[in-house]
């Protein structure tokens, strides 16, 4: 019963990209005959816009239909999880339909999902903090309500979300790297190493040394050392001065 989830938990440690993660999740989804799975950042994840997918098989006819019709604006599931302070318990589509007084349009979305062979689904809210919520949605033609399967799928969703979050935050940190190295206008700027430029860029993004340490995965002392070097190389006394000088010298343009 738990072999698939144990294998998944072993293999997820070796995953280093969202694509690999999606392939790994797909293996488990296939076992439970789930055709649709998607994890959406509802709000709060700083490296991704609200309502953007984090991982999942989102290039499918149903998802394209859903997005092109703007269903995310009125979908009962998205509204349900946005508004309440729930305890993170997963729920089935049919439970939501039974409990909530849905609008006509909202029923229509479920009807169209049914026609697209997504007859029952499971929604797993993942609340990381009061300001951050992700939603995993899974659905299929032969989806059955079963407490053990729900527990397994919940585990897969939680661990995959954790991994995707780590990967996306890491990639976000690398993307912030200034891409105009060597073409900086002022000679002072070319004395900075790529790492120092990266730290400077983060400082200009209103990140504290503690935040930068966490984002880049090094200790706060390392960040402080980089900061000290930046100040020395730019001939300023504070990091405010360093950021101001970097802006004046066009580093961020």
């Amino acid at each position, binding site marked *: *019963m*738990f072999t698939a*989830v*144990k294998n998944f*938990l072993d293999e997820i440690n070796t995953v280093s990209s969202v694509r690999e993660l999606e392939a790994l999740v797909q293996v488990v989804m296939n076992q439970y005959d789930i055709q649709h799975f998607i994890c959406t950042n509802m709000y709060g994840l700083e490296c991704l816009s609200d309502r953007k997918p984090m991982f999942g098989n989102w290039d499918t006819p149903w998802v394209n239909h859903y997005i092109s019709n703007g269903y995310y604006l009125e979908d009962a599931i998205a509204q349900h999880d946005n508004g309440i302070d729930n*305890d*993170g*318990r997963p729920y089935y589509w049919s439970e939501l339909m039974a409990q909530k007084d849905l609008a006509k349009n909202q029923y229509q979305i479920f009807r169209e999902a049914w026609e697209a062979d997504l007859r029952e689904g499971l929604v797993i809210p*993942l*609340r*990381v*903090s009061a300001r*951050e919520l992700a939603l995993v949605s899974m659905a299929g033609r032969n989806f059955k309500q079963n*407490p*053990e399967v*729900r*527990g*397994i799928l*919940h*585990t897969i969703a*939680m*661990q995959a*979300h*954790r991994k995707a*979050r780590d990967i996306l935050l890491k990639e976000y940190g690398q993307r912030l790297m200034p891409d105009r190295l060597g073409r900086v206008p002022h000679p002072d700027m070319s004395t900075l190493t790529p790492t120092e430029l990266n730290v400077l860029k983060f400082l200009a993004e209103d990140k504290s040394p*503690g935040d930068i*340490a*966490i984002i880049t995965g090094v*200790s*706060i002392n390392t960040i402080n050392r980089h900061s000290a070097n930046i100040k020395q190389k730019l001939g300023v006394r504070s990091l405010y001065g360093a950021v101001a000088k970097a802006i004046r010298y066009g580093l961020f343009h």
Partner: protein
Amino acid sequence: MIHVIDKVNRHLYLSVLEEMFQLRHEIFVKERGWKKLAKPDGFEIDQFDTEETTYFLKLDPDMHIIGGMRMCPTVGPTQLNTIFKDSCVLADQPVGPEHYEWSRYFIKDTKYRSASGKPVFYELYTGILEYAVAMGIRSLSGFIETVAYNQGANMPWDFKQLGIPTEFGGTNGEPVGYGMPTILAVDNTMLRKTKILWRMRKPVLSLSLGEYTPVSEVGFKPEVMMAVQEFLADHPEHIEFVASYAAAIQNVDPTVRNAAQNTVADLMDDSSITEFSAAIVDRINASQISMAMQ
């Protein structure tokens, strides 16, 4: 500051522990509806509240409880090998002197903030981790609600599932809970990262001397706290002296601090004193504390 209460200093906290059991009844039985935990006397005490249990309590200056948690050894019965014994389907709960189980986390005053604006759970978790690292504990396992596990995604922790989320309770009018067994790997690096993330620069453990504890919000390194506890286990008669020295060393007036340090230095130099080791008191020295509020 976080008070650590174990079998060595339990006699100093009898009334506090009584209040804690009543408070737990209030929170877990009355507010959360876990009727199975109810006792006729209104004290929520279960089979895991033994002499070996260590309690971590955040107390206000009047020794009233703001929040707390307990830690039990895994060498005896634990929640995960008794009540929830079928839940560890992914991995077993590690057993041994380096592995503990935590449970009964509660916060009475969720709006409380420390002098530098930290919520109670920052101090409580930091206190537990500081103590655990100093004690050489390598893991803390426990059955927690799934929502709490998701919140751990933000933390630099190696926090794993031992089982899958399941429903529990739901009989005799109790609510249906939703939780799972988990394990948190503890080491110095994760403690350091946690403190950086929460901007907790100072230690958070109090000397844990019961009502003798100086009221100042100054924390001590766990090693100091443990050394003092060890000393007082052999010399309980010196508790007032240790407490007044600790209070003096935390005084904002430098002359008081210097006078206290000089007194202890004199005691250490006095070779005629054989029954009292002033060296242990000297460990509570100014270099071990910071007057900055946490």
